[in-house]
């Protein structure tokens, strides 16, 4: 169990973290999710020991490690821009931690071979980082971080610098790797889709504070506040409530709980159709329909439709009182 308690950290006038508390369960894959500059990378670096917090403490298995230097924390860290040792071959990069730990030669050799196999770089051991693609470099960085069998794996925007296709591949691959190894993993991302897809737990961080923590479904279905709701998926406003566009019920018949709207535009997006409408009070609203639903409604620009939020009782569109902040578990 990794705990960060009341962590604050400033850089000059900039407050990166304010009284942040997070607990990370062992063996889980946790995402620190939030917009750029929100403080999530700083939190990761505090956990790694690369930054010393101004106040607060980091505890691992109950022990205070706040002032233990990074090199003694037995962590694997993957940097956003790989931090490849440019003057070393792929092999020497991966073997670096083992050399520092004075691992016996054949043991080290066996381990590097296994790791390069694992990250599919076995044919490229003699290459230099400059001769690798971005995705290959990131996999090398991962193998390097795993070489010393760290207790925790920390990844700072691991796929941020890669193009969309490679990103998608590496995501699935990281999830499978984690399922094989069960190593406690924390990764930083600003991409909610990435967090939703592979994380067991998500900690949403904004303006240096934790907005909400919990499993992806819980955060999506029961966001603690509008920021979390908006950050985790598309939203639109209906009757003063923030709702998901696909949760809105559309009908052509009048209904007591429904708001009247005029259709401005229908945009076909393949499987889904986006309905853009204007409410009676002039507010725009967006609804997501399946193509079949759209066909069934048989509406066009200028038609009148009736829009109903998912919970007619007005249960605030899924907004529930904030789950205990600072806990990754509900």
């Amino acid at each position, binding site marked *: 169990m990794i705990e960060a308690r009341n962590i604050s950290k400033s850089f000059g006038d900039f407050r990166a973290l304010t009284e942040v508390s997070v607990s990370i369960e062992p063996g889980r894959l946790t995402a620190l999710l939030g917009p750029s500059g929100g403080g999530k990378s700083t939190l990761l670096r505090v956990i790694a020991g690369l930054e010393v917090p101004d106040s607060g403490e980091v505890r691992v298995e109950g022990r205070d490690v706040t002032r233990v230097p990074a090199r003694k924390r037995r962590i694997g860290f993957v940097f956003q821009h790989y931090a490849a040792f440019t003057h070393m071959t792929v092999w020497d990069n991966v073997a670096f931690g083992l050399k520092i730990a004075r691992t016996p030669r054949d043991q080290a050799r066996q381990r590097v071979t296994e790791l390069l196999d694992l990250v599919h770089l076995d044919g490229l051991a003699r290459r230099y980082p400059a001769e690798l693609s971005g995705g290959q470099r990131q996999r090398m960085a991962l193998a390097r971080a795993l070489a010393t069998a760290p207790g925790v794996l920390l990844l700072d925007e691991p796929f941020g610098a890669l193009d969309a296709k490679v990103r998608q591949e590496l995501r699935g691959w990281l999830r499978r790797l984690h399922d094989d*190894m069960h190593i406690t993993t924390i990764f930083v991302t600003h991409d909610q889709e990435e967090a939703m897809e592979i994380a067991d737990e998500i900690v949403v961080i904004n303006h240096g504070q934790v907005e909400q923590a919990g499993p992806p479904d819980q955060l999506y279905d029961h966001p603690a506040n509008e920021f979390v709701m908006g950050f985790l998926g598309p939203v639109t406003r209906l009757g003063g409530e923030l709702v998901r566009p696909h949760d809105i019920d559309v009908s052509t018949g009048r209904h007591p709980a429904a708001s009247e709207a005029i259709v401005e535009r229908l945009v076909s997006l393949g499987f889904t159709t986006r309905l853009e409408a204007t409410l009676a009070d002039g507010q725009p609203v967006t609804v997501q329909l399946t193509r079949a639903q759209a066909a069934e409604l048989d509406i066009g620009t200028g038609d009148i439709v009736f829009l109903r939020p998912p919970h007619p009782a007005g249960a605030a569109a899924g907004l529930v009182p904030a789950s205990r902040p600072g806990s990754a578990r509900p």
Partner: protein
Amino acid sequence: MADLPVSPLGLRAPAAPGYIRTGASRAAAGLGPGVALLYLSLMVALPVAALTSTAASSQFLTALTAPQTGAALALTVAEAVATAVIDAVTGVALAWVLVRDDFPGKRLVNALIDLPFALPTIVAGLVLLTLYGPGSPVQLNIAQTRAGILLALLFVTLPFVVRAVQPVLLAVDREAEEAAASLGAGPLTTFRRIVLPAILPATLSGAGLAFARALGEFGSVVLISGNLPFKTMMASVLIAGQVESGDTAGAAAVSVTLLAFALVVIAIVTGAARRLARRHG
């Protein structure tokens, strides 16, 4: 960590992360900057401070207004200005030929440009005297003349402008030049309107460095100039002479003046080059 567990996959993490609690070992990190700054001050700042203090505590103005000193300073500045101006022209021409022209042996010529930096200055003076000194095989004796000093200064400052302009010239957008040509501009107009604005900042900073170097140059001029007071006595040679005759205070006064002049000129030239570069984008 020496007994690393190597399972078939080799990657299973130990149940408890082996964090070790230690005292602060970060003391060393704070020591680095302190040591470097101390080193800096011992090596550089302290001698310069001592020089300035000596100059200030002596009769600074009396030392400077000695007629011989005034003449030497005036000659030095004039020679340095002439050097910088000639270097600016020849340096741009050399850089142009080395970047845009092609001829056999170009790479050798390019490498030779740096020779004045590698050659000891006293050897530079000696070398020039063998060709342009007494008994010159080309019947040209410029020893003990102001032209001789200029030649020596041009020799030792040759690389400054060339090496400053070359990379900029390489980066000049050839398409802009072609566009100018396609709009009817002749080669000279294209150079003046397209290339020159681009290389002007680099030329200026190169010439500024050449000026500073010429201002303080000693080794290459000491043999050639003959060191005739009021005629070919350069400031650096004057300072050396004053030290030799025990007039440390006078030498310090001339030195500080020379240094201040170099710093002011470098600051002005660097500022101008930066402003020009910004305007050019």
